[in-house]
């Protein structure tokens, strides 16, 4: 079943007098449990597509259905709710709240989801254990290494049990070894049935996925399955 159904969407920005077509007539379907990479050089529209998939932005035209719900016509509050319940973001720069400890960072989406404090603590601790950071719960981001920070961010993305995990260059700020650890973690999550969408410009990272969607100049250039997947192993 489709978790994401995008049909003929376009996104146009008005810059001064000029219209910029960031996306033009893009059609994509992503099934539950898929592991997809979105690739493209800068300016290809991949960030715009990612924002669209993450319900941070709405298309100028076309249809975007998320789990059968029409996102294109949603208001800010509905979009916020979808982001909260259905999407787990993982960013290149981790984007943790610097003043809060790991546990509180992971709790944050549950706070906005209206989960009570006790349940919140339990779920957040569980998610941190899941990424092997059970012993770092009360550390602040600046007391954690880059890889640990990204694992906190992944725990935060997982804690609401979202329909998709949307990872934007998750290894971009990490060294190769740490990056591999993170990719291993994604592999595990994939095996546990999570839908993962990876946005990257690195071929090697993209080849961890089963399918690569290549964008160029706002249109889909290629959408193909990966023949020889990179299966990460812990060093």
């Amino acid at each position, binding site marked *: 079943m489709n978790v994401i159904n995008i049909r003929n969407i376009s996104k146009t920005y008005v810059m001064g007098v000029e219209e910029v077509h960031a996306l033009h007539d893009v059609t994509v379907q992503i099934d539950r449990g898929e592991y997809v990479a979105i690739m493209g050089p800068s300016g290809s529209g991949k960030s715009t597509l990612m924002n669209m998939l993450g319900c941070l932005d709405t298309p100028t035209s076309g249809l975007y259905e998320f789990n059968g719900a029409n996102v294109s016509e949603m208001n*800010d509050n509905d979009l*916020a709710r979808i*982001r909260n319940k259905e999407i787990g973001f993982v*960013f290149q720069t981790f984007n*943790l*709240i610097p*003043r809060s400890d790991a546990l509180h960072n992971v709790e*944050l989406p549950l706070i*906005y*989801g209206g989960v009570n404090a006790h349940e919140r603590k339990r779920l957040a601790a569980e998610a941190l254990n899941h990424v092997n950071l059970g012993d770092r719960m009360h550390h602040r981001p600046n007391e954690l290494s880059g890889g640990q920070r990204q694992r906190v961010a992944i725990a935060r993305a997982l804690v609401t049990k979202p329909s998709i995990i949307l990872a934007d260059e998750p290894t971009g700020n990490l060294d190769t070894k740490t990056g591999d650890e993170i990719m291993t973690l994604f592999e595990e999550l994939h095996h546990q049935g999570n839908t993962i969408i990876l946005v990257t410009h690195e071929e090697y990272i993209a080849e961890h996925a089963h399918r690569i969607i290549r964008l160029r100049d706002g249109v889909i250039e290629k959408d193909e399955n990966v023949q020889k997947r990179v299966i990460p192993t812990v060093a």
Partner: protein
Amino acid sequence: MAIIAIRVNKLRSSLTLLGIGVGVFSIIGVMTAMGVLQNAIENGLSGLGTNTFQIQKFPVTFFHDGRSRSRNRKDITLEQGEMFIERMNEAKYIGLESWFGIKQIFHNNDKTNPNISLVGETVQGFPTNNWTIKQGRAFTNQEVDNAASVCVLGNGVVEKLFERGSPIGEIVKIDGNKFRVIGTVEPKGGFLGGNQDNYLAIPLTTAMSLYGKQRSINIMVQTRDQESYNDIIELSTAILRTIRHVPPGAEDDFAIFSNDTLIKQFNDLTFMVKIGTLGIACIALLAAGVGIMNIMLVSVTERTKEIGIRKALGATKINVLMQFLSESVVFSQIGGVIGIIAGSILGNVVALITSAPPILPWNSSVAILSTPFVSLSALGLNIVAIIFCSFIGIVFGVYPAWKAANLDPIESLRYE
């Protein structure tokens, strides 16, 4: 959450807190100080007994020169006082008195400081002055009629000259004249740093024969009960106008006051001070509010990225709005609490200086701000102050919070 944000920018926050604090401080400080003084006046103003009023030549006033119009008034003479007593039959007591200045009292080789008021009294002047005999007795009518050389001591004189042994029967000297002590009066205690017990009373007739008759006397009237009080004041006015030949329609050429009118006059004065302070403090709080707005706007800009993260994680506009609004409210409230603490300390330092009873911030029984609409105790005023601070926090926090709530999540996430 809100507290953490405040802690991050210590200097900037403390400067803004100072603004709110000073505003609240001036309100609470002045109100408490004035409340302390009022409280002291109401408790300590026992110059007159209950249901008693006093008629004298000049009005009593705490402020402005009320004497300009009454400067040419004729003295209330002893004869007028006696005529008044003859015609006024409805009163319980009518005392006559006159004050003869500040004297030094001598006893053997001891002497007091020159701070003792010499007062001439009639027999009924004792109850109307609220004087209770402690030792010995008051004057008799005979002593007053015969201008006897006897005296009754206020407790201040007793403490100074007769620490050991009874003063009764002793001889004291004032301006070279000898008086036999026949009684002492119970102390009334200090009042706003003064002493109400530093006096020495001799018969009015004695005083007038020694110091001259050309002076105005005070007539003190005690009514039988509270109900007849206002009627007796009116009756007294009428009698005295007749005695002093005041033409109909002309203003009284004498003044009547009671403890109530004294308290009312003082309250009128403090009310003006309070209203003035309130006005200035409100302006200070508005200025502080602008400071809060400023610090919140800076905070929103600094935390743009955080706002983006929160929105990506599912925070709605309302969530973000409430977060920043509660920060600015908590912020103003902290300033308010600081102001209340500092103000209460200032107000009660006044209590300490004037040896008046203190008014603690949680006091809820003494009204320290009375307006025609509402009266507030210290506790009430503090609660109002906190509510007002919260209000300032909301008013000046709304725009920054609204700005935060409407940030575009994509732009915010990209913000470095």
